[in-house]
C-alpha cells in the first residue's frame, strides 16, 4: 500500500476533539472545583483538599482493583461487604493478639497481614467460582455480598466490633499520620494507583487482562491462560480491598454492619466515570482515580454549602454524574 492509499483525513479519534473528550472526567473534576471555590473559598484550603483525597483513598484503592476486574469483563458487587468483613475479622484478631503480642506494632502488622490474606482469599474464592464454576460474576458476588456482611453481623452480634483502645492509639498514625505533610492514605492511594497503572499498561498480565475483556476467544487462541488471569484480577481486587480496609480501620477503630455499605456502587461508578467501559476491553487507571476523587468532591461540596435542600443532595450527585459522563461521551465507541 503506497502513501496515496492512505485516507484523506486522519480518523476523528486522533483529532483534538477526541483528545479533549478523553479528558472528560478530569474536566468535570476541574469544573466542579471551580464551582466549589466560588461557593466557598475554603474549598481550596490544604486541609480540605487533603480531606477529600484521604476520603477518596478508600473507594479509590478499591476502584483501582475494580478497574482490572471490569476491564477483564467481570464485576464485583461484594467489595463493600468484603471490606466490612475484613475490618471486623482484623479487629477481632488484633484484640485477641493483645495478650500475646502486646498492643504495639507486632500485633498491628499481624492484623494487616491478615487483612491482606482474607482479602486475597475472598478474591480467590470469587475467581475460582466464576471461572471454574462458570457462573456469572454478577451472581457470585451478589451472593457473597450477602454472605460477607451476614458473617460480620454475626461476629458483631449486630453491634460494632471495637478495636482495643491502646492498639488503636498505636495504629492511628496509619490513617491520621502523614509523611512530608502528605497523609498516609493519600500516599498509599498514589502508590496503588501508580502500581496499578504500570501493571495494566506495561506488564503482560495487564495486557492479557485487556485482551480477555476485548475478546476472550482471541485471548485463548493466543495461548493466554484465561482462567488464571481472570482469577488473578479478583485476587488483585481482594488485595486492594484489604489495603483499603487496613487504612480504614484506624480511622474509626471499629467495624459494624454498616461499614462499607454501598462502597461497591461507589467503586464501580468511579471506574465507569473514569472512562472504562462496563463491557470490558479497555480502561485506564488515572480515569478511575479521577472518578473516585470526583465522587468524593461532589459530597464535599454539598457539605460545604447550604444552597439547596439537604433532601436534594442525592439529586445533585446524580446530575453531576450524568453531566460528567456527558462531557466524555465523545470518547465512547
Amino acid at each position, binding site marked *: 500500500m503506497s502513501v496515496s*492509499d492512505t*485516507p484523506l483525513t486522519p480518523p476523528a479519534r486522533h483529532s483534538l476533539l477526541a483528545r479533549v473528550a478523553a479528558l472528560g472526567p478530569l474536566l468535570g473534576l476541574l469544573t466542579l472545583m471551580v464551582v466549589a471555590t466560588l461557593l466557598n473559598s475554603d474549598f481550596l484550603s490544604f486541609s480540605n483538599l487533603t480531606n477529600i483525597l484521604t476520603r477518596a483513598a478508600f473507594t479509590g484503592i478499591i476502584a483501582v482493583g475494580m478497574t482490572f476486574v471490569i476491564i477483564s469483563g467481570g464485576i464485583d458487587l461484594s467489595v463493600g461487604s468484603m471490606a466490612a468483613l475484613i475490618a471486623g475479622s482484623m479487629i477481632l484478631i488484633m484484640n485477641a493478639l493483645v495478650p500475646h503480642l502486646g498492643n504495639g506494632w507486632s500485633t498491628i502488622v499481624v492484623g494487616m497481614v491478615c487483612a491482606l490474606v482474607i482479602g486475597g482469599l475472598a478474591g480467590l474464592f470469587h475467581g475460582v467460582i466464576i471461572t471454574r464454576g462458570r457462573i456469572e460474576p454478577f451472581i457470585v458476588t451478589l451472593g457473597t455480598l450477602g454472605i460477607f456482611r451476614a458473617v460480620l453481623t454475626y461476629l458483631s452480634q449486630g453491634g460494632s466490633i471495637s478495636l482495643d483502645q491502646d492498639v488503636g492509639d498505636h495504629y492511628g498514625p496509619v490513617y491520621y499520620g502523614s509523611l512530608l505533610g502528605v497523609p498516609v492514605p493519600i500516599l498509599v492511594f498514589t502508590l496503588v494507583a501508580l502500581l496499578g497503572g504500570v501493571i495494566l499498561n*506495561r*506488564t503482560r498480565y495487564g495486557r492479557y487482562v485487556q485482551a480477555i475483556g476485548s475478546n476472550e476467544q482471541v485471548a485463548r487462541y493466543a495461548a493466554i491462560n484465561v482462567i488464571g488471569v481472570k482469577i488473578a484480577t479478583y485476587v488483585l481486587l481482594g488485595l486492594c480491598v484489604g489495603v483499603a480496609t487496613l487504612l480504614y480501620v484506624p480511622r474509626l477503630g471499629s467495624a459494624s454492619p454498616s461499614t462499607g455499605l454501598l462502597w461497591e456502587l461507589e467503586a464501580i461508578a468511579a471506574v465507569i466515570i473514569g472512562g472504562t467501559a462496563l463491557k470490558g476491553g479497555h480502561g485506564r487507571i488515572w480515569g478511575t482515580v479521577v472518578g473516585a476523587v470526583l465522587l468524593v468532591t461532589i459530597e464535599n461540596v454539598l457539605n460545604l454549602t447550604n444552597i439547596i435542600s439537604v433532601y436534594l443532595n442525592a439529586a445533585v450527585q446524580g446530575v453531576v454524574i450524568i453531566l460528567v459522563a456527558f462531557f466524555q461521551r465523545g470518547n465512547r465507541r
Partner: protein
Amino acid sequence: MQRLPVTGSSVAEATELIGFQNIYKAFGAVEVLRDLSFGVRHGEIHALLGENGAGKSTLMKILGGYHAPSSGQVLLEGREVHFRSSRDAEQAGIVLIHQEFNLAEDLTVAQNIYLGHEPGGALIDDRAMLRGAREVLARLKVDLDPARRVRDLSVPQKQLVEIAKALSRQAQILIMDEPTATLTLRETDALLDLMGRLKSDGVTILYISHKLGEVKRVADRVTVLRDGRYIATDDAANLTQDQMATLMVGRELEEMFPEQAVPASDLLLEVEQLSVPGWAQRVSFGVRRGEVLGFAGLVGSGRTESFEGLVGLRRHTVTSVRVAGRPVRIRSPQDAARVGLTYLSEDRKGKGLLVDFPLAQNLTLTTLDLYAHPLLDPAAEHRAMVRAARDSNIRAGRLDVTAGSLSGGNQQKLALARILEADPRVIVLDEPTRGVDVGAKREIYHLIHQLAQAGKAVVVISSELNELLGLCHRLLVMHEGQLVGDLSGEQLNEQEVILYVTGLKSQCPAGVSVRPGAAGASG
C-alpha cells in the same frame, strides 16, 4: 481427470514434512472430515481447494492445534504429533492465519501482533514491539500505524494484521486460510510475492483460496477436498483453473459468467454529489433498471463508505437521490429499505450476521413484517429458511444451528439470501463473493443477472477485477474518494481498468464528477 495421480496413500513419503493419515472429524453428529490422507512436502506451497464447507478450515485447525481429530493421525516429519493447543503447534513451528479474524479489537495493531509473545522482561518493551510490528508490516508492504486500535481498521486492514501476526511468529509451517479474500490487487500482489520469499527461506506454506488464479500463480501442488473427503493431489502446473474447478465441484462447470441482457433506459437510482466526510467527495452516478454496475478501486478508495453513507449508515451530504425518478431523503437504513434500496456489508462477521442466532432468524431479520400477523410465525420462518437454503445452496449440517457454525462461504450465502428476502429495487453488494467457492460464485453471478433481468438495478463493489469485468455492464472507478472513471464497452479490459484504479489515468480533473448520464458518451 482420470490422469490425475492420486497420492493419498496411507503411508507418508519420506520427503513429506506433514502427513495426514485417515483423519476423521465430527462435530456432534455432523461428520465434517472423512478418512482423509495426504502429505505436504518440505518447503512447498501447497494449495488446498474445495467447495464451501468441504472441510478445509477444519483440517487446518486440526493441524494448527485448535481442534483434535476424532480419529486418525497427523504426522510431522514422519512422527505422530498430538497438539493439545495452538501453543503446542506453535512450538512445533506451525502457525495458522484464521479465515475469520481473531483480533482483540480494543488493542492496537502492535499489541495484537505480539499478543501472548510480548517482548521485554518484567515490563513489556513497547518500543521493541512497535519496531517489530512496523517491520512485519513493511514486509507485507503495508503502510499502517502499529499504534492504531484494531477497532478502527477496515476489513482488509484487519486481514493484513492477522497475516502480520502470523508472520511475526517465525513459523516453519504457515497455514493461510483465505488470506486474500478481503484484499485488493495491490495487497494480494505483495502477499503472493512474500509467499515466494518465504518459500525460498524454507518455509512450508499451506494455502487455502477460492481465487484459482492466485493458486495457479503461487502454488507448487494442489490438493482438492470434497464433502470432507480427499479427492486428488497434483502439481499446480499440471492443472488448468477449469480443471481445478471441476475437481472441486465434481462435475464440469459451465460458463462462469452469464450472457448480459441489455438494460432498460430508465434510471432506477440517481445520486448526485454524494460526500462522506473524510472518505468521498461529490460522487454522482446513476444505475439503470436491469443494469449491473460495478465499482472498482483500491482499499481506502471510499467505495464502502460512499454506499454506507448513501443508505444512512454514516454521516453524509448529498444534493439529491432519486429512486425510480422520485426524489427521496435517506437518513437511516430504514429509510433506504423503505424506498427499496439495500446494502450488503463487506464485513460479514461484524456487520452482516448475528453469529449467535439460528439461521432462520438471520434470514428474516430485515423482513420480519412478512412473518408477523401480528405475532411471528416461526414455522413460516423455518419454511423460508428451507427455501432459501435450497435456492442459495446453503450447506449446513442442520438448519437449526447458529450462523456462526456455518463455513465462511456458506455464511456469505446466508447474508446474501437475507438481503434478497426484502425484494429490493436497488441492490448494493459489497464484495458479494468474498470467500465463496467457484461453484457458488457462478451461482451468485447468475443470480445477479436474474435480478437485473427481473428489472432491478444491481451495484457490485468488488476487489476482484475479473469478476467486475465479467459481470458488469458498466464500471465506475474510484480513487481517493473520487470517481475517476466511467468505463464500458471496449474500455472494459484489465489493463485499462488498472490504470484508473491505481490513479494513473483519470477521465476528469480531480474534483469534477462524472455525470450519470454521460456513460454512453464516454464509452
